[in-house]
Structure formats: structure tokens, C-alpha cells
């Protein structure tokens, strides 16, 4: 016999189910209960950098938009600093870097307003291109899916990004690049997520 390691096991994941909004975005479920819902303001009023909107849909294996998804975004500020005690540097007052969005029940469209993040120092001194980390849960998703949103207009930084470069198939790298456009003077990035099929989005085991 050998000695026994005394690690605990992580609590297993379960689907967020169809009523995830009740717990995490009750206003969308149709009732007011909390003074403050969390995650609707990612950047706050004082954040430096370019104000952007990110929009998309999440598409299932049949090609239909999923209408009961919740997404959470986690990003650095324009200087590449995360609002977290372990990340060196300061963020602007009111900058949280975290957001929670749910899809429209009729169309499956989601969107959030924020600032464009700056490049973030990665492992071994390799700079990572600007990106927003995304976590996706829904009915039928047994464990939350992690991916990253990169930006079309950062071609040079994207080409050098250590995470994008881990993706062996160049075609699949494109699934992480949000398309930039302008609407009524507002910069809008489009990021559609495909759960299955030819252009399945790259998901990470982090």
C-alpha cells in the first residue's frame, strides 16, 4: 500500500438548464427581485480606450440560434490589466472587466458594451493579442464552454498570439476572430459561436 493523497475532487458540473435567467438575470426572466443585478456594466464610466459593442448568436448543430444561452465575459482594460488582486497594475475606478449577458428569447441575439481590451502579457514573456474570455452555459451544455474573442483589426498581434498559434488548423483560427463594422458611429464586433459543424468554434480546456 502507498500513502493516500488527500486531494478533494472538484464538484461535477451540471447544465445551467432552461431557467438560468431566474438565478443569474432575473429581470430577463420577468421579475424584479434584486436591487442590483450583476454584470451589466463591464467597463464602468471611467475606462480609457475605445468603446465597442460585441454582438453575436450561438448556433447549434442544426444551424439554429440558441435562445436560452447565458454568456459571461472576462477581459483586461485598455492597458492589458485585469481587475484582480494578483494582476500587477491598476484599473480605472469602476472597471470590473466582467459581464453577464443573455440572449434574446425570440432571436437568440446577444450583445454587450465595453471597451476594447489591450494586449495582455502571457506565459514566458509572450504577449497575447487583445481578447475577451468568454464562458457559455445553456440547457443542453453539460459543462460551461470556454473560448476567446479576438479582434479582426489586430491582424499583426493575432498572428503572433501564442494561443491562436496553438491551433493547428489555420482555418479554425478564424472562428475566434470577431468582425469589425460601424453602425450609427458605434464600433460593433460580430462574434457568432458555432457549437458543431464545419466551422465549430474553438473551445478551450483551461
Amino acid at each position, binding site marked *: 500500500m502507498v500513502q493516500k493523497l488527500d*486531494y*478533494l*475532487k*472538484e*464538484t*461535477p*458540473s*451540471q*447544465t*445551467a438548464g*432552461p*431557467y*438560468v*435567467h*431566474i*438565478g*443569474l438575470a*432575473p429581470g430577463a*426572466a*420577468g*421579475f424584479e*427581485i*434584486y436591487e442590483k443585478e*450583476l454584470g451589466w456594466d463591464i467597463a464602468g464610466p471611467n475606462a480609457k480606450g475605445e468603446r465597442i459593442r460585441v454582438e453575436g448568436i450561438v448556433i*447549434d*448543430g442544426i444551424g439554429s440560434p*440558441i435562445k436560452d444561452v447565458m454568456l459571461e465575459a472576462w477581459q*483586461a482594460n485598455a492597458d492589458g490589466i*485585469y*481587475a*484582480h488582486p*494578483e*494582476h500587477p497594475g491598476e484599473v480605472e475606478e469602476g472597471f470590473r472587466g466582467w459581464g453577464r449577458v443573455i440572449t434574446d*428569447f425570440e432571436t437568440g441575439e446577444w450583445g454587450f458594451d465595453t471597451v476594447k481590451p489591450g494586449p*495582455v*502579457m*502571457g*506565459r*514566458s*514573456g509572450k504577449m*497575447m493579442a487583445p481578447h475577451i*474570455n468568454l*464562458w457559455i452555459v445553456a440547457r*443542453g*451544455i*453539460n*459543462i*460551461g*464552454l*470556454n473560448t*476567446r474573442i479576438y479582434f479582426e483589426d489586430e491582424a499583426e498581434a493575432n498572428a503572433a498570439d501564442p*494561443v491562436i498559434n496553438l491551433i493547428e488548423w489555420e482555418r479554425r483560427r478564424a472562428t475566434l476572430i470577431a468582425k469589425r463594422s460601424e453602425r450609427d458611429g458605434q464600433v460593433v464586433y460580430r462574434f457568432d459561436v458555432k*457549437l*458543431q459543424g464545419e466551422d*465549430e*468554434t474553438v*473551445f*478551450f*480546456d*483551461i
Partner: protein
Amino acid sequence: MRQPGEFYQRDREWHPPAKTPDYKTSVTRSPEYSLLSLQQSASEITGPTFGHNDIDPIDNDMIHNYAQPGESAIGERIIVHGRVLDENGRPVPNTLVEAWQANAGGRYRHKKDTYLAPIDPNFGGCGRVLTDEDGYYFFRTVKPGAYPWRNWVNNWRPAHIHMSIFGTSFSQRLITQCYFEGDPLIAKCPIVNTIPDQAARGQLIAALDMNATIPLDTMAYKFDIVLRGRRSTLFENRLEGN
């Protein structure tokens, strides 16, 4: 010097796989390519933090947080309590735990829920709380009812409370469900059974905790939650690389 490093690799065999045909909705919502394994960077070892300004003290009392003054939710009054720990057995303090559930009749307060059990006017169905310095949390609520759902013709969810936990990093983010000891529906549930290992399924079943009950008032169940643990880097740490 011991410094906090990466989080332990997630044991994907302990968690449910993405595609579990007995839970039908997963079939078209499960990625088919392998996940790309990432060594963690600042993007993964950081995550949102919350404080007492974000929530109200009544938020963890689901019996009252949506009730009219002087009223309370109908149902079996229970306390659900426990600790949030990491895989090293250390408490995770000041972390946000959010919960949502059906009412005692098995009905959700949601515009998409059309089950014929009635809405309880004094029950909202969601709560949230921060763990204390020892990683401890508690909710007061009513025991949720079982409810039918469309999967096979005749499927009923065991009584359950959905729980969302943050930890200290985006890589610890977790949503799960808490079930209750002794419920015969647990073993029959295709969602419970997405988890392949019986011991892992057992980790989601809260134990009746007579020591935590309030006599003549409220029953109690204990539900500990374990988040991913973290390596201490004993030698050179290349995580930040500078």
C-alpha cells in the same frame, strides 16, 4: 518561496461529457472537436471579484426575499449550508454563490415555464450570498418540488437547487445542481446521469443535517462545494514569464 501558480487540470472524466444522448438537448449542443488545452495565463488565473456592495443581506433568504411584508414562501422550510473548498481542502472565502430553484410545487417563476403547478406569490426562486472567511455559506429557502420535463415522455427532475460559483479565477467558474438525500428520482434522472461516475454523482447529493436544523422551525441539508485547487510553485514560476 511558495507562490500560487496554475489551477490543477480539470478531471474531465469526473465531469459529464459534452454529448450525452439520454439528455437529448445535449446532442446538438455539444462540441465535436477536442477542446484545445491551454496552459494558464493571466487570462485564466484571474477572475471577477465581488463584495458586500454587490448584494443585500436578505438575498440569501429565499423564504422572504420576494415575499410581501409579513408573508413567507409556502413549503418545507430548509437551510442549505456548507463550505466552498478547493481541491487542496482550503476554504474559498468571499466568493459569490448564486442559487435558483422551482417553488415547493415544482414551478419556476419564469415566462417560459408553463407547468400547471401554481406560482407562489411570495416566492421568487433565486438567492445569492458571499462565503465568509472560512468559505462558509448558507441559504434559507423552501424545498423545491420535483417537476416534469420533456426529454422522454415521462421524465421528472428530482428536487434540486441550481448553484453558480465563481471562486477566484475564471478557470474555476462552475454551475452545478444540488440534490437532496433520499430522493428516489435522482437515480432515474438523465441529467444527473450525464455524470458517469457514481461517486461523482453522490457529490451532488446534500445530506440531511439534523445538527443544523432549527427545532420546531427549519430542516437543514449540508452541501459542500469543491472548486479546482491550485498548485504552489516550489521552483521557478514561468506563468508570467518576466
